[in-house]
């Protein structure tokens, strides 16, 4: 599966489509809503978070698999997907700060979701610190997998639940419409035709990059065991 090419071509075509039509698709401009053209960030900033959730989800599944089977390959998968997830999270945070600087007046507003995602990413950084602090590979894998599960479940209160409970600049907070990802009233069907392929395209690209890292690690392991 990770060596097949159909889904890699799909990722390329989807992203080519997103990055071209995404700039031409008409965007709505309802009165009173100050977003206008910047809503196009929905095709770039938001998919970073979607892809991150997918990567962290896959990572925790492999972490659980490792704990059940002690298979070193499962731990490699979990580790590399967590790594890509963190990269995507940082990209999402930085692109969000760029967008916020022009949309909300400052790159950091102490908005519930900004704080929440920063905390969630710090928790995942600690996963790598934890692994790095252990010498024994088996301990790294076992203790790392348990921490991975905790880190994954912490994503939900920090990113999805608490931002809904307080007033927030992001959509979905107390007193505003939508969910913490997007406000359905800010998008139209013609935008969704670009947005959903963008989600899939960016996710597939991050999966591709992760599988490349995994394959290199597997080769490394084979060399260490047989070389």
């Amino acid at each position: 599966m990770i060596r097949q090419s159909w889904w890699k071509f799909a990722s390329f075509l989807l992203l080519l489509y997103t990055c071209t039509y995404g700039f031409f698709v008409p965007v709505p401009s309802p009165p009173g809503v100050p977003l206008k053209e910047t809503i196009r960030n929905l095709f770039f900033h938001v998919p970073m978070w979607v892809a991150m959730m997918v990567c962290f989800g896959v990572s925790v599944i492999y972490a659980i698999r490792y704990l059940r089977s002690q298979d070193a390959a499962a731990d490699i998968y979990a580790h590399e997907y967590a790594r890509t997830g963190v990269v995507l999270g940082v990209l999402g945070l930085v692109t969000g700060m760029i967008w916020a600087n022009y949309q909300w007046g400052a790159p950091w507003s102490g908005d519930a979701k900004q704080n929440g995602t920063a905390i969630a990413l710090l928790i995942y950084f600690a996963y790598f610190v934890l692994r790095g602090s252990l010498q024994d590979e088996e301990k790294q894998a076992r203790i790392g997998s348990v921490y991975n599960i905790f880190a994954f479940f912490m994503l939900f209160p920090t990113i999805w639940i608490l931002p809904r409970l307080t007033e927030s600049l992001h959509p979905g907070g107390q007193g505003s419409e939508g969910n913490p990802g997007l406000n359905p009233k800010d998008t139209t069907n013609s935008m969704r035709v670009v947005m959903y392929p963008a989600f899939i395209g960016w996710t597939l690209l991050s999966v591709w990059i992760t599988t490349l890292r995994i394959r290199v690690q597997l080769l490394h392991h084979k060399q260490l065991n047989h070389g």
Partner: protein
Amino acid sequence: MDKLRRIVSVIILSILSIAVQAQDVTEETSPMRSNGKIYVVVAVVVTILLGLFFYVYNLDRKISKMERK
């Protein structure tokens, strides 16, 4: 594999069904589009994308070669 093909076709058809409803927007011409410079932005982004994919594709091929040895 058959199950996977079915899942992928469901996803593609759902997206197409949204496209069919996308006839309802009054277009507001953006500043960059009305002076034709949006094409510059698109060209830049597409160049970055092509470069990225070229790099990742080459990495993939190199790793496949190493695996076959």
